[in-house]
């Protein structure tokens, strides 16, 4: 199952196809009734678009998402030209116009579906690293590397692990093999199989996932070494034993999607099981207050951290905060209170339901917060004694690398993980029975559309594909470890800060108007 590398064990990618019978591709291939079922297309296509079984009268419907489109024209296996009866037609898929948005474009979604299916980078010409938001990560590029620096190292010789305990305080040294761990999505907001599948993936990848604030389902216990227990303001399901299970305990002061507002689980999602876990009443909406009612100052916050450390003398302490103007001061406060990890959550991210007004307007995007906090911690002489984790609007492998170059040690991923599970970001996680695609739902019917094995492998595949991109970047800059990239903002450029001639050397910023 696993192969050895320098210091980490990586699971293997296993093809994990879509749960839905019709996949969505960038291109549409239609086969007309003129088809004589000669099997030529199936014979020619190396991408597996055409499948013909000898005992079937006709080939299967083309598997469109695997088609590489018009660029195939130069190949001698281009099915459209080779079909003896011209039964095949190829065009761009108009459906893409109705998919995605400025931040997660349709191509970025499809790119991640492909990565999660294969564990490899997409073969189709999809732009999965840049969105259309017109700012932040979408305007940043890595500089052109000096080719003399480039290393000839295999991926398995490149270290993508990060340390989560830099304090030397006698508590365990915790290393995760990729610079990402899973964000908190609570029991109640997501299906149990999603939660367990994420934990299984975290275990396989030697990283972590987080319970969210809805309690610790017993199904997670086999993976407890890889599960962070979140202690949020509502204290739902927080018990002494769940605090003793975990390697890391996360205090959630605020979250980027709804800074200053607290969580909200709609009544429909509070099923019997969810209510039992949260020790509340079935069908009643659950509001997490904001903020912690026991914290009025940094001193109170230190009391929290001390309490956490007292309950579990092996646990590492993470403090999750949002990104207000004074996020740098908050981060330093967390450091002085004894936290091992400061986790800043930017305003454009989040997975769960949040008021649109909050997501758009309250608190600053993570792109600003990372360098702000990083620099302040450097100036305070504290940067090498605390782990800085960023989240909120980090969508893809390149965003992760950019966040690290801006100053983060690692990132927390939520949305991309559920996109790997074929979330189309319709945004209706909160409505009625919950997610129609079975990801964020506790509905008896919808919640069982998804299996733990599928969740586990799709997420593993996505991270394996991401790791390939990180390794490419590190190699090109002559780095053997992703730790060398931390704070290397000199390797980044921002398109708006370049002269026109300089700008032309880099990939242009995508400009597209979306109907949202």
């Amino acid at each position, binding site marked *: 199952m696993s192969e050895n590398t320098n210091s980490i064990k990586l699971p293997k990618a296993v093809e994990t196809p879509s749960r*839905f019978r*019709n996949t969505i591709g960038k291109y549409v291939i239609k086969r007309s009734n003129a088809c004589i079922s000669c099997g030529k297309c199936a014979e020619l296509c190396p991408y597996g678009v055409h499948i013909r079984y000898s005992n079937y009268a006709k080939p299967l419907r083309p598997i469109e998402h695997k088609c590489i489109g018009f660029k195939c024209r130069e190949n001698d296996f281009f099915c459209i030209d080779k079909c003896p009866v011209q039964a095949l037609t190829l065009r761009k898929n*108009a*459906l893409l*116009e*109705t998919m995605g*948005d*400025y931040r997660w474009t349709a191509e970025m979604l499809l790119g991640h579906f492909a990565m999660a299916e294969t564990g490899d980078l997409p073969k189709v010409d999809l732009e999965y690293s840049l969105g259309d938001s*017109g*700012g932040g990560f*979408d305007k940043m590029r890595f500089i052109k590397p000096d080719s003399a620096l480039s290393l000839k190292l295999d991926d398995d010789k490149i270290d993508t692990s990060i340390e989560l305990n830099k304090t030397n305080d006698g508590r365990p040294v915790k290393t995760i093999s990729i610079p990402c761990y899973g964000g908190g999505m609570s029991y109640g907001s997501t299906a149990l199989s999603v939660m367990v599948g994420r934990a299984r993936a975290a275990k396989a990848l030697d990283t972590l996932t987080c319970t969210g604030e809805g309690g610790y389902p017993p199904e997670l216990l086999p993976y407890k070494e890889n599960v962070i227990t979140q202690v949020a303001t509502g204290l739902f399901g927080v018990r002494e034993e769940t605090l003793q299970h975990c390697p890391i305990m996360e205090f959630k*002061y605020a979250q980027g999607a709804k800074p*200053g*507002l607290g969580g909200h689980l709609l009544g429909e999602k509070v099923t019997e099981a969810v209510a039992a876990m949260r020790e509340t009443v079935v069908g009643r909406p659950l*509001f997490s*207050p*904001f*903020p912690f009612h026991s*914290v009025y*100052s940094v001193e109170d916050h230190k009391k929290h951290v001390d309490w956490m450390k007292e309950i579990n003398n092996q646990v590492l302490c993470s403090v999750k905060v949002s990104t*207000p103007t004074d996020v740098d001061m908050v981060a330093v406060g967390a450091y002085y209170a004894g936290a091992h990890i400061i986790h800043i959550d930017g*305003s454009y991210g*989040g*997975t*769960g*339901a949040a*008021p*649109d*007004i*909050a*997501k*758009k*307007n*309250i*608190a*600053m995007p993570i792109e*600003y*917060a990372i*360098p*702000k906090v990083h*620099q302040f911690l450097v100036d305070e002489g504290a940067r090498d004694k605390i782990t800085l984790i960023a989240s909120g609007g980090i969508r893809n492998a390149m965003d992760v690398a950019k966040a690290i170059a801006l100053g983060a040690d690692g990132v927390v991923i939520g*949305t991309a993980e559920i996109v790997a599970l074929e979330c189309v*970001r*319709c*945004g*209706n*996680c*909160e*409505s009625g*029975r919950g997610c*129609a695609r079975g990801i964020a739902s506790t509905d008896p019917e919808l919640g069982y559309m998804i299996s733990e094995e599928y969740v586990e492998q799709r997420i593993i595949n996505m991270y394996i594909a991401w790791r390939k991109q990180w390794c490419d970047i590190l190699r090109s800059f002559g780095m053997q470890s992703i730790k060398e990239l931390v704070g290397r*903002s*000199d390797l980044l*450029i*921002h398109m*708006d*800060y*370049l002269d026109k001639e300089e700008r032309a050397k880099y990939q242009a910023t995508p400009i597209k108007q979306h*109907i*949202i």
Partner: protein
Amino acid sequence: MPKKYHIDTQETPPRFYPVGKYTTIEFREDCAGSCRECVKKKCVYGIFEDNFLHNSSMKEPEFLYTCMSCFRCVQECTKGIFSRVINPEYRTLGNNYWTSDIIHRTWYQAHTGSIPVSGAGYRGPFVGKGFDSMWTDMSEIVRPTRDGIHGREYINTCIELSRRPAGLAFTDDMELAVDVPPILEVPLPILFRQPDFGILSRKVLLSMVKAAAIINTFMLINPKEIKEDLKPFLKNLIPQMTKDNYADYSDLIIGCRMVSLAYQPGIEQEFAKLREINPDIFIMVNIPLDKDCKSIVENLVNTGVDTLYCYTDENGLELNTDNPRFVKDMTREIHLALVDLSARQRVNLIIYGGIAMAEHVNKEIICGADGIAIDLPLLVAMECRLCGRCLEGLSCPVKLEEMDVDYGCARIINLIGAWRNQMLEMLGAMGLREIRRLRGEVGRSMWFEDLEKENFGPIFGERKVAAI
């Protein structure tokens, strides 16, 4: 406990199918016709239920207003015949400022009275023009409300429209030595204004006025429109008069609490005459927001005016210039001019122009307004599509002229209720307990230019692309 101000909302479905965002496309030649697995029957949201003919006789639904975009029908149809596109009519909704998205959200709020909520993060551009180039702050730990959304009923959204003395003075025997003018309060910083266009039938106007009365705000209105049917609501009307015609409306000056006068040089000489007719009248002066506005405001501030009402065009752009500035920047200029004169506390500033969403209200107040006035959102709440057909004398697609007054009133109340709740969310996050504390409080906001300079400047150097 005293009763808290609250706007009661109730679900008020639209009379016409709103313009849907999506429309389906089916490649029917491959459809089995009566498939037992038909995805339309299995739609999680049941959006085809009201369109049963869609199944039985394959009649196209006119709209997919309620489509939630889950793609399950597209991905699960056994023959793969389903696809979707953006409804071409949806693209034509509104204009560059009043986008289809804003109109859709306004309809949703007017329908449900709820605030728009969605999952999976923000989906818009990183930054935009106008109000979209600023963010509001939040308080991580220390905050006055302390109770998050549970305590938001304690957040006060009340503003004043009455002037205030520069300071209090007392005689030797501790009696007040200055006149303290009467106080006029509005429980929320949103005034209504009669729109400049649209089907302004009596029913439409009455709906707006009635809604203003129920939520206890004011509506600025042309005095010619105040006929018998609006007379019961005089206390919530602000007739917009001029120096030349106010004498014809002495009954309104007596019946209303506040009147407004269009600015003309020497307008301050009329204030005493108005107060002769009604000593308790509050006076507002309407000033176009252009390059002269600042000096006019500076001259008027000590003349006994209560409120200065400065207006741009409907999109928030400066008037009378070829190179207009946006309302938020102009508001800031006026506000700071008043601060420099040490006169900001004496008068109130109401701004009209470009307010299309709840967040704009708070942002405009951060820029220095006391409150704002709106008109188009009221029309949109009543299903107006801003198509402009009425301007050409054509029929209204949603027959606004036939609308029931109670219906229109309920839709407006829903919208304002949802707006107020969103304003409270922002105030709560900022840790403010009074919207009056937000006025001019730029420290509670973050501006694109500043964030770029502070955080990206040290990394990337000088910004070469100035415009957003």
